């Protein structure tokens, strides 16, 4: 499915289907969600808690696809829940990319 999406992105790079960037407003929502609600397990500054640290240093060791899958499907047997009822796969990708690049601060 991802491959098909990627392919369609290559073919129709102008199409909205493959726009993996959320809208500006949605981005703000996601930043808040990740800082606050992922933060309850990972720490608001992502230094870890019950969940692992999500700093660029630790995450860059991991395959990108695996991290996206962890966010989207969770990790059964651990406390990491699946977020697919809340986030689209593209949004999960966007979040992981931001985490890798140093996560944006909340605007206030």
């Amino acid at each position: 499915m991802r491959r098909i999406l990627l392919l369609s992105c290559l073919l129709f790079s102008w199409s909205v289907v493959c726009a993996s960037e959320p809208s500006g407003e949605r981005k703000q929502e996601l930043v808040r969600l990740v800082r606050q609600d992922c933060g309850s397990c990972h720490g608001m500054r992502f230094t870890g808690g019950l969940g692992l640290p999500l700093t660029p240093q630790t995450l860059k060791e991991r395959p990108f696809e695996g991290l996206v899958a962890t966010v989207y499907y969770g990790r059964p047997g651990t406390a990491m829940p699946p977020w697919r009822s809340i986030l689209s796969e593209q949004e999960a990708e966007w979040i992981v990319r931001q985490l890798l690049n140093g996560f944006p601060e909340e605007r206030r």
Partner: protein
Amino acid sequence: MRLLLALLAAVLFAGCAQQPPVRGTGDLGIVIERADGRILIVDTTARAVLGRVAGLGDLSHASAVFSRGGRYAYVFGRDGALTKVDLLLQRIERRVMQAGNSIGGAISQDGRIVVAQNYEPGGIKAFDAATLELLAEVPTQSKVVGLADLAGNRFAYALFDKGEIWLTDLSDPRAPRTERYPAGVQPYDGLVTPDGRYYLAGLFGEDGVALLDTWRPQDGARKILANYGKGQEKLPVFKMPHLRGWAVAGNHVYLPAIGRHEVLVVDKADWRESARIPVKGQPVFVMARPDGRQVWVNFAFPDNGWVQVIDTEKGEVVRTLQPGKAILHMEFTPRGEHVWLSARDDHAVSIYDTRTFARLATLPAQSPSGIFFTSRAARMGF
């Protein structure tokens, strides 16, 4: 000579400026402003914010305990800081960085020892409550959850990664003695009953709760509510429930189910399940009003805009409230006529009458999370 006198007067005068106002502390409390490393000092009689104290660091999972005089709050920050705040002078009294990643703490029965529970490096650390001098540490090689104070300056806590309950005796604070008891898979938090006798550790990795009778610890921990999920698939848990804050009302204990939108009710006489009450979402805090007539429940994301009230006599939800966006915490006034609720995403703390459910006041606060009142100082397990 005159100079000396003037100097003396100046010193005395400066001393006076430092005098706290003459007032009691029994109706004081704090509200954590989690994103800003600040706390509000509040007055539950005036229903007002008295002041702000900044510079407490990363408070994303902060909690607090109080000196038994109610003047000092000990605030445990996520970044491993332990900060002693003077509520009357509204300033930081002392502060130590004691770990890399911390989750909370407790204060001893005699009020002399403050203990922090840490994720990184995993373990507990005991500090002199007056000076914050380190007295002892017990490394656990595991994240520590559910730290609770017991009689005799003992402390109970659970090890998330090791599945054990540990009891540490700090009656000689520089020579801790620790006993270990197998508990179950991934304990996520713990509580002690109001009398300080039973320690309960909720399990995340299996259906059930570990129970240790701290009067008879040699009998070991046993499992209650085993298989409450009946093998059904769990719903996602977007936030770990918290057990601390008694959910003991009358003869029953009210506990959050994991991965089920239910509150489980256990009979304290035989520790068997006596009922389960369907609720709006994954419960996070299940807290009894001090008189035990009501149990208030808040919920994990995405249902964290709701709060439900269980009438313990009827055994059912009698009220469903929408107090605001992202209700993170609830705290009852000492005798329970009011409850304060923090609405993180509304940047507000709301005060409700627990009898009429009327909203009495709303106070502004930046991303408020935990609310802690000094009445905790006199209660075991807080």
